[in-house]
């Protein structure tokens, strides 16, 4: 019995030290990437490549997700609002939800799945095939060359994608609202402009930017931490997606309570 308890405590101890070590590594990585962001040479070409890559890779799926989200949401709210004869409020309700929550969070989940994974896979396979060592041997800092453009790329692309999400999602709800549910077009748009505030859009954009940064840093960190062959790359990719998504959801909660107070 005593031995068993000791074993349990020991494995708990190992778990906690691993966790703390991991956190320490992650913090260290974060500081290094910040340092190398501000150190010349600035690699504009790589940054633009990443913005193009992240945008290009995600725009289609953002288009799909947002149009359907807007449409379905409009319909669901209609079902509820009809009961109390408030169906003309569909427009503002959907748009506010999109602006503050749905656009940044769903874009975040999409980008974590597509681009966070790609970052971990690219950097991870460079790590196991010694390409990162090769960069370092040539005197190039691998954080600056590989991590910084990806982190900045995600940070810059995410608000843009989130804005596209908002616009397309609004379009979807407008189509369903006015063409299918037969709400008057003028009522729909004027209600939206009555209730929408700039702060709501700002909140969504700030969230999207923060998510982009976090997805970038998690994806690249997982890539740099890959060990041992192709299997390790797969594991790192998986971790990038899982942690990316969890982070988006958890951070959203705290950001919401923070931002609603200041905006």
């Amino acid at each position, binding site marked *: 019995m005593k031995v068993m308890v000791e074993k349990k405590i020991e494995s708990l101890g190992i778990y906690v030290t691993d966790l703390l070590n991991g956190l320490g590594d992650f913090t260290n990585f974060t500081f290094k990437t910040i340092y190398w962001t501000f150190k010349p040479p600035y690699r504009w070409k790589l940054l633009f490549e990443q913005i193009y890559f992240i945008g290009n890779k995600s725009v289609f799926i953002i288009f799909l997700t947002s149009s359907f989200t807007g449409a379905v949401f409009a319909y669901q709210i209609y079902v509820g609002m009809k009961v109390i004869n408030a169906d003309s409020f569909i427009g503002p309700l959907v748009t506010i939800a999109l602006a503050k929550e749905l656009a940044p969070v769903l874009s975040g989940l999409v980008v974590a799945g597509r681009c966070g994974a790609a970052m971990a896979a690219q950097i991870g*396979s*460079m790590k196991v*095939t*010694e*390409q990162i*060592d*090769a960069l*370092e*041997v*040539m*005197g*190039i*800092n691998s954080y600056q060359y590989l991590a910084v453009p990806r982190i900045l790329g995600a940070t810059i692309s995410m608000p843009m994608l989130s804005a596209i999400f908002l616009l397309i999602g609004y379009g979807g709800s407008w189509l369903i609202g006015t063409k299918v549910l037969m709400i008057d077009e003028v009522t729909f748009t004027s209600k939206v402009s009555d209730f929408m505030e700039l702060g709501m859009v700002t909140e969504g954009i700030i969230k999207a930017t923060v998510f982009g940064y976090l997805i970038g840093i998690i994806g690249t960190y997982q890539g740099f931490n890959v060990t041992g062959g192709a299997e390790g790359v797969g594991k790192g990719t998986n971790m990038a997606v899982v942690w990316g998504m969890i982070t988006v959801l958890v951070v959203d909660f705290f950001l919401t309570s923070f931002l609603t107070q200041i905006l």
Partner: protein
Amino acid sequence: MSEYSIEFQHLTKKFGEATILNDVSFGIVKNKITTILGFSGAGKTTLMKHILGLTMPTSGDVIVLDTTINKLGDLQLREFRRNFGMVFQYAALFDFLNSYENVAFPLREFTKMTEEEIKEKVMSLLESVGISKEAAFRLPSELSGGMRKRVGLARGLALDPHIMLYDEPTSGLDPITTHMVYDLMKETHYSNVHKGFTSVIISHDIHATLKYSDYIVFMEAGRVVEHLDVESFKKSENPVIRRFLEL
């Protein structure tokens, strides 16, 4: 100026609890070809990474071209690394660039050469390692293992290094290609030696090693067991080395 281009002084390296290099002291003679032999896991790659400052000693010093490499600051170290060319075990070509761009990469990063000059240099480097014009514009994934090694060699030579490091340059190659790569390394060595040029090779290939090297370092479990010129190595009485020689 010392007669060594690389010197290890009481170099010890631990990863966690494990001692990977244990009080290693020896020098690698300037302008010669030295081969590091030893079984898998003996610490050869780790030793090579110390020469480049990719790994730092737990204790002891690594002195390269009269500079203590483990005492350099980050920027100085990056600057210093331009003295080296390295060919990695699996070539480590950048998989997002074709052969031409791989070789051009260090030139673009570190020189002010024009596109014209780069083209000339890259093409002559690729030609010297026997890579055709057509293969020059293929991605690494579309090349054979031997071709990749040769492109890796061309890239390693691009900045005219003073020290060339090869980590198992011929592992996984057929005997003919192996000899081609060795001939290439030898040719590279002797065509540069007048400017000061040291070659260090990690190898498992005992026959090629005896044929091509000037000095042999034999490592076992993180220690240097022997460090001899080739003729003395052949006569070594050390039982482990005898076993290696009788393969």
